[in-house]
């Protein structure tokens, strides 16, 4: 297995160096970056599967001369599961990128982009493999920096530079909190190796554990995009090239989920009071609901998808939070179920979100437009992209029988099983979280009905859309692969569940695979087959059979189909795209019903004809929703730090002598402290 690991890392290194060496030959650069990435990710898939199924974790380490730092890696089932997720997504994205790179001809250096792409995948793989605190921080920082460089690919645009800066600041604030977490863990174990974190010499005092919990939640939450730390996502994801957005949203934010599980269930040994889980659950519910609500109001397709990442991280946290609550009451089976649901949603979200971002990239490639109100009618012009996007949309809306449905269903079950908890408060709170999840699910449905309906159906809404053409084959293959994963993970959950069970077993201390897979694996039955069961294979067969029945009935009663095509009735005049419903119009009722959340400001200016006020010459409509978090949380913080910096400027005189004095004073102070 180690050999496979070296192949994987070696391929990434080749992928980083090769495009840079071939900087004179732009025509082969995208292939030079893509091929090693395909090899590496394929190796990663095998490595992930082997890592999950092997009984003993694989370790390797390289001692360095720097104190406390060893380049140690450890492949246990949890790490292997995330490698599998990264590699499955990475494989499809690498194939897609080969064709997509043409979009950047003359706009960005393809060689650098290709090298960074491989570096990004490599750093994410190392993050989940790292087995030493300092090494983890190094690769974590590497991942953040590489992704920052990728975000600012189109740095000639001011908004891209702003997005990059915003992302850079947020991710570093996060890293600061992660360092604090590790320092707390280091405090009692005296070493930075994860092994020492797991088995500290003396157990951490309760206060320190709570502190570590909160610091990790903030630190990794900033990367995952938990509300209110989500504000960077809708800036950074649209700014990055689409295949990078697919990786950032599909996989990178998941490394934070990995780290949270690692810290809570591995380092802190899964022993915590109930309110930890409740805090996670609360944040999950808030993120899920607010994420989808803000997504509904977005008409820039990539910003919309970015908000949906916030939503889905919320759903993942609902599963994990429920698992943590059960864990603290020693309901081992249910804890395992919650974790399993969260992890299943993690891999599912990686698949459909990457697919949707790649779809958005294809639309950009074909039309060069961002706003869905400029698309329209693309299902005819781009039939493949359309079908793949539809599969992604159905999956993210959690509709049966796709993968999103299965994992959301599992999250629902773990929330429903709360009736086994001893306190009435939690018994009530978890079903309310389930109701919030239901609301989130339907709003996501509305959002993707809007996104697909406005972008792909009816008449083209702009000349760009009218002349759009289907994307090249490699891009279609990349999307097709992810669409296939979405369907397989939904229709055949019995493939994934035994693997997930192996991942969850060491964390929750119990294996539930045998119980969850009822009826020889054809049905899922969370813990108790009496309580609930689901069989997506049966449901998909049923759906197909009944659709055939509908067709059969139509033929029996109606005979052979003779359909006539005629234009849509436009009340006597020819139908034009301007008569179609727009995305803004579509979400207007939702905006109005939830106006307490959105705080919308609407401005309508009408210019009337000179002759009569009954005829309008021009109307100008504008609406904004209040960016609550930025206005009430971030702006005051930024203002505070700017003022603070202004005050502190007094000590920065710019004179070398003064600085030497400062250094001298500090030295004396430290010496005094040492004595």
């Amino acid at each position, binding site marked *: 297995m180690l050999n496979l690991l070296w192949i994987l890392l070696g391929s990434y290194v080749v992928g980083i160096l090769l495009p840079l060496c071939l900087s004179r030959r732009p025509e082969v650069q995208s292939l030079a970056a893509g091929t090693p990435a395909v090899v590496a990710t394929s190796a990663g898939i095998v490595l992930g599967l082997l890592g999950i199924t092997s009984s003993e974790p694989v370790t390797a380490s390289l001692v360095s001369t720097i104190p406390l730092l060893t380049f140690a890696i450890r492949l246990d089932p949890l790490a292997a599961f995330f490698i599998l997720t990264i590699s499955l997504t990475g494989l499809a994205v690498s194939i897609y990128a080969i064709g997509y790179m043409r979009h950047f001809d003359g706009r960005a250096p393809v060689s650098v982009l290709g090298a960074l792409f491989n570096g990004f995948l490599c750093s994410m793989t190392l993050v989940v493999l790292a087995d030493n605190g300092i090494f983890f921080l190094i690769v974590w920082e590497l991942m953040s920096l590489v992704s920052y460089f990728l975000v600012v690919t189109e740095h000639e645009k001011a908004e891209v530079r702003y997005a990059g800066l915003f992302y850079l600041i947020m991710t570093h604030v996060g890293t600061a909190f992660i360092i604090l977490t590790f320092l707390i863990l280091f405090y009692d174990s005296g070493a930075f190796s994860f092994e020492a974190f797991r088995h500290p010499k003396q157990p951490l005092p309760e206060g320190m554990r709570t502190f570590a919990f909160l610091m990790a939640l903030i630190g990794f939450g900033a990367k995952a995009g938990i509300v209110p730390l989500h504000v960077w996502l809708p800036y950074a994801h649209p700014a990055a090239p689409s295949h990078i957005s697919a990786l950032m949203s599909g996989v990178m934010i998941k490394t934070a989920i990995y780290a949270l599980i690692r810290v809570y269930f591995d380092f802190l040994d899964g022993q915590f009071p109930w309110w930890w889980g409740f805090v996670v659950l609360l944040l999950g519910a808030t993120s899920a609901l607010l994420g989808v609500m803000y997504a509904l109001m977005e008409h820039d397709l990539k910003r919309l998808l970015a908000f949906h990442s916030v939503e889905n991280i919320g759903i993942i946290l609902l599963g994990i939070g429920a698992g943590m609550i059960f864990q603290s009451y020693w309901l081992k089976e249910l804890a395992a179920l919650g974790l399993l649901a969260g992890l299943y949603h993690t891999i599912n979200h990686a698949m459909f979100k990457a697919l949707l971002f790649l779809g958005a990239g294809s639309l950009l490639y074909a039309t060069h437009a961002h706003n869905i109100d400029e698309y329209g*009618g693309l*299902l005819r012009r781009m039939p493949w992209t359309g079908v793949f996007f539809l599969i992604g949309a*159905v999956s993210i809306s959690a509709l*049966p029988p796709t993968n999103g*449905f299965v994992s959301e*269903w599992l999250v629902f*079950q773990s929330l*429903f099983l709360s*009736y086994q908890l001893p306190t*009435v408060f939690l018994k*009530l709170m978890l*079903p309310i979280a*389930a*109701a919030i999840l*239901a*609301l989130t*699910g*339907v*709003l996501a*449905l509305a959002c*993707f*009905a809007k996104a*697909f*309906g406005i972008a792909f*159906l*009816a*008449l083209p809404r702009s000349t760009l859309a009218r002349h759009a053409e289907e994307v090249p084959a490699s891009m279609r293959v990349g999307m097709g692969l992810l669409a296939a994963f979405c369907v397989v993970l939904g229709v055949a959950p019995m493939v994934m569940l035994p693997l997930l069970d192996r991942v969850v077993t060491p964390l929750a201390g119990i294996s539930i695979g045998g119980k969850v897979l009822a*009826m020889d694996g054809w049905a899922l039955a969370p813990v108790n087959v*009496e*309580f*609930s*069961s*689901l*069989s997506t294979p*049966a*449901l998909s067969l*049923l*759906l*197909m059979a*009944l659709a055939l*029945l*509908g067709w059969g009935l*139509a033929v029996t009663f*109606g*005979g052979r*189909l*003779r*359909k*006539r095509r*005629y*234009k*849509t*009735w436009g009340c006597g005049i020819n*139908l034009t795209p301007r*008569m*179609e*419903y727009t995305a803004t119009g*579509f979400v*207007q*009722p939702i905006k109005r019903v939830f106006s307490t959340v959105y705080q919308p400001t609407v401005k309508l200016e009408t210019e009337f004809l000179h002759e009569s006020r009954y005829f309008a010459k021009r109307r100008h409509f504008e609406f904004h929703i209040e960016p609550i978090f930025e206005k009430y949380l971030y702006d005051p913080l930024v203002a505070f730090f700017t003022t603070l910096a202004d005050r502190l400027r007094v000590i920065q005189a710019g004179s070398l002598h003064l600085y030497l004095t400062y250094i001298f004073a500090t030295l004396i102070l430290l010496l005094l402290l040492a004595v």
Partner: protein
Amino acid sequence: MLQAIILVIAQVTVLLAVSPFLAGLIRKVKARLQLRRGASVFQPYADLAKLFRKQPVISTTASWVFTATPYIVFASTISAGLLVPTFISQTPMNFAGNIIALVYLLALGTFFLILAGLDAGSAFGGMGSSREAIVASLTEPAMILSIFAIALTNGSTNLSTIVHKTALLEGSLTDPSPHLMAFAALFIVTLAETGRVPVDNPATHLELTMIHEAMVLEYSGRYLALLEWAAGLKLAVFLSLIANVFAPWGIATTPAPAAMMIGVLVYLAKVAALAVVIGIIECMFAKLRLFRVTDLLGVAFILGLLGLLFFYILRS
């Protein structure tokens, strides 16, 4: 296995057969209450037969999504119907899904209907789709909460298990108040989901008021027939749900022929009674403005929540 297949076919047949009758019955009740004679209760069957024979006209603007939608909606609605017990308490498809699966199967149909509404490119379709989106998003949380209160009494979220246990009086019901609240919530949800007054008016074609009818406005011929049938089926599914979850009396608990015969008759009587109630409600109330519907559905949500709260308080 053979028995299961026969039962599935029987249930599909019962649902298909009973759904146009329910629509006809509601229309008849409304007509009588308005002192009209009204069409025969079997008129919807004739309507369907005629629609199937008519040549469909399809918009040149529409894509394959438009023609695929009727089949998807039809299939997803019957699949949902197979998860709900009708005349026998132990449905063979019980293992395939619980209440969440039911809700999401219906959502699958809603999703494609919304898309089809947008596909023809006319503003009416978009209007219907947009309204359907908001109504659907407000009903589902209420529906899940209301069913959950009942699910807890029986220790199951699988509808068939709930009904079977209630029918055999195995549930630990001590006080009916959680069930009454859940019933009220589910009834409101039914009115909203099946597009009845006061949420939507199936008898209108006025752009200011229609929701469901606006989405299917561009359909004709066999496609419209399938969608009309599916709408009737959805009503039948919800009425079966209410009838059997809250009043499982008379339902067949074993697959014995005699019990099943009685089961079918009792089932017909129960859903017909509920249809009459809906007809009366449609006569007594005016349609609400779209933005007042939220209040009604908010009430349903609160009722579901109260049902849950009462359940735990009465238990402890």
